[in-house]
């Protein structure tokens, strides 16, 4: 396949990213060879459960890892080597070009500082604004993020605001320097559904109005489905499947993606619908075996799944998946029938002779 000559360069490109944390029990392999591209104006959702490496990936991009972390791989932003910028101690890149919104707004805000001052601080440090200019801009930013009565809010403290309004303050801070890339790490996990909808609508609108790109980190498949152009599913530190959102949700190839979608209750399922849970639990990240990390929980698993880690096949930017017996293919069907006939997978997981998985 030939790359189209007219294709623009991605804004952010990540290649073969690895992150290890040495611990007393051995090295934790939090991220194991993650690669993706993000284009201008697009939203990429990174979906995974706890321990999948999604947040560590985001923190690596933002240069927020503890010093003990061992990182390798390439991160390129608009032609610049991001890890070199980090190593050089560049002051006006992180938080300016690329910014991040965290899960819990209470811990990302200073509890003893008025919210206007906190937004102004960013403007003064990165853009050299005077105090009064910065406070004026802070009020405008609060208006942009849909804060009711911004003039009154600038002089309030975080504890005087509801969770949803606090998260708006955090988003205003992230927007202060007109970033081209916003990384949102579970931005709505700590808030109620009605507030979640407002915040996601707000992020959508800001991205469109300002031509920003966005990485949305979430454990919620519904959020990823409704809000992302592309989705990457992570499991045990690897991207196991990535595609445009429609393909990923309706024509998935990786058994983990399929199993995850089957296991969650959906609003249009009938009452008392029997769920298909994923058996077992996520793997240890210390000394993982040289095998597909999902194999012990996978109803398709064959002998070759235990013999090595499957590569993420296909070209970056297209539908890619790391599976030897993908669901929805002949190989996958054959693997499933063989396991059903045997009553057990190659990894020792019992499989019922008929019906769904689990």
């Amino acid at each position, binding site marked *: 396949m030939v790359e189209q000559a007219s294709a623009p360069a991605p804004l952010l490109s990540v290649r073969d990213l690895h992150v290890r944390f040495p611990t007393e029990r051995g090295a934790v392999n939090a991220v194991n060879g993650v690669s993706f591209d993000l284009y201008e104006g697009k939203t990429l959702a990174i979906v995974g459960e706890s321990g999948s490496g999604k947040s560590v990936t985001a923190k690596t991009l933002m240069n927020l890892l503890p010093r003990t972390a061992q990182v390798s791989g390439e991160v390129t932003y608009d032609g610049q080597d991001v890890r070199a910028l980090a190593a050089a101690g560049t002051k006006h890149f992180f938080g300016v070009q690329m910014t991040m919104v965290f899960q819990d707004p209470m811990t990302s805000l200073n509890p003893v500082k008025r919210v206007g001052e906190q937004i102004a601080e960013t403007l003064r440090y990165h853009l050299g604004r005077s105090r009064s200019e910065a406070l004026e801009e802070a009020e405008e930013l609060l208006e942009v993020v849909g804060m009711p009565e911004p003039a009154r809010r600038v002089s309030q403290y975080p504890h005087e605001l*509801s969770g949803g*309004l606090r998260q708006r303050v955090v988003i205003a801070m992230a927007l202060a320097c007109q970033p081209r890339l916003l990384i949102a790490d579970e931005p709505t996990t700590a808030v109620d559904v009605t507030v*979640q909808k407002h915040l996601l609508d707000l992020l959508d609108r800001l991205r469109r109005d300002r031509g920003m790109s966005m990485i949305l980190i979430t*454990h919620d498949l519904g959020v990823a489905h409704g809000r992302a152009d592309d989705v990457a599913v992570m499991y045990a530190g690897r991207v196991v499947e990535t595609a445009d959102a429609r393909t990923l949700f309706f024509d998935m190839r990786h058994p983990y993606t399929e199993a995850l979608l089957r296991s969650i209750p959906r609003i249009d399922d009938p*009452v*008392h619908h029997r769920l298909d849970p994923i058996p077992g*639990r*996520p793997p240890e990240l210390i000394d993982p075996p040289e095998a597909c990390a999902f194999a012990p929980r996978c109803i398709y698993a064959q002998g070759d799944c235990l013999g090595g880690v499957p590569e993420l096949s296909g070209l970056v930017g297209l539908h890619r998946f790391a599976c030897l017996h993908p669901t929805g293919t002949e190989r996958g069907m054959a693997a499933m029938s063989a396991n059903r006939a045997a009553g057990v997978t190659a990894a020792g997981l019992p499989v019922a002779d008929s019906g769904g998985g689990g």
Partner: protein
Amino acid sequence: MAGTGHAQLRDRDDVLLRIKDLVVQFPAGRRRVVHAVSEVSFDVAEGETLGIVGESGCGKSTVARAIIRLVDITAGEVVYEGRDLAGLEGEDLRKVRPRLQMIFQDPISSLNPRRRVRDVIAEGLAVWGDDIGSWSRDRIDELMDAVGVEARYGARRPHEFSGGQCQRIGIARALALDPKVLICDEPVSALDVSIQAQILNLLKDMKRRYGLTVLFISHDLSVVKNVSDRIVVMYLGKVCEIGSTAEIYSHPAHPYTRALLASIPEPAPTVDAEEGDIGDELPSATDPPSGCRFHTRCPRATDVCRDVEPVTEQIGDIDHFVACHHPVAVEVRTG
């Protein structure tokens, strides 16, 4: 409603638990009061699963805690098998408690970290030994087996288990006393997506196996729909809507229920996306709005909503009750 009223209370012999005009208030200092639960009424029939759904601050957890008297009841009745638990004290209260057991949201912090899980599960039996009858190591093994934790791990401590395993142990502890009512307060909210279904299926299996009546509290509308026969929608300490799950999800009549259904990431097909556009600001529970407590955020509110609190009324003759002056018109259906 967010209103009062008793239309939803059923006059049936199999009603196991009846909550009537329950009020729970907490002092908030300077003579102010948090109105956590205000004149809430509902009932649960034997063998039923009742879901209580609403956002943070709606009083759903406080209702659950009031039923088993973990918080003090300010006023109202909690009638269990014909006895009002609200007035019980001392030994009488102690005697009834094994019948109503609870499992909590955070599975790890709700288990004593210093004790072996076998002892955590057995603790209630040890305390109640004489009243409950005989119990043995076999009984604990059977419980661990029932909830899917291998009995040979009984000597381990909670930190050696994952969140999902700890929730299974919490369920075994609750079941040890052979309760009639199991109250589940956000039992899967702290668990990973792939583990939630395991626990939800386990709860359904345990319900069938031990003949339980379940109160299931959650903010997650899809989860509540999956497990509940009937649901109560609460807002700011009041009941909005109550009825059979299938009916409420297919014909939501209260504007707040509709807002919830429209706000979830993949909205329900029965509502329009704009119906989720209610303001961010939850009014203060120390100074709740007059009339219908939802009127400050309600797209359908009129003057009457500000002045007069709505009372629950039945829709047609089916199991569907709504407390609203302007419920979304659904054609009157008969059962």
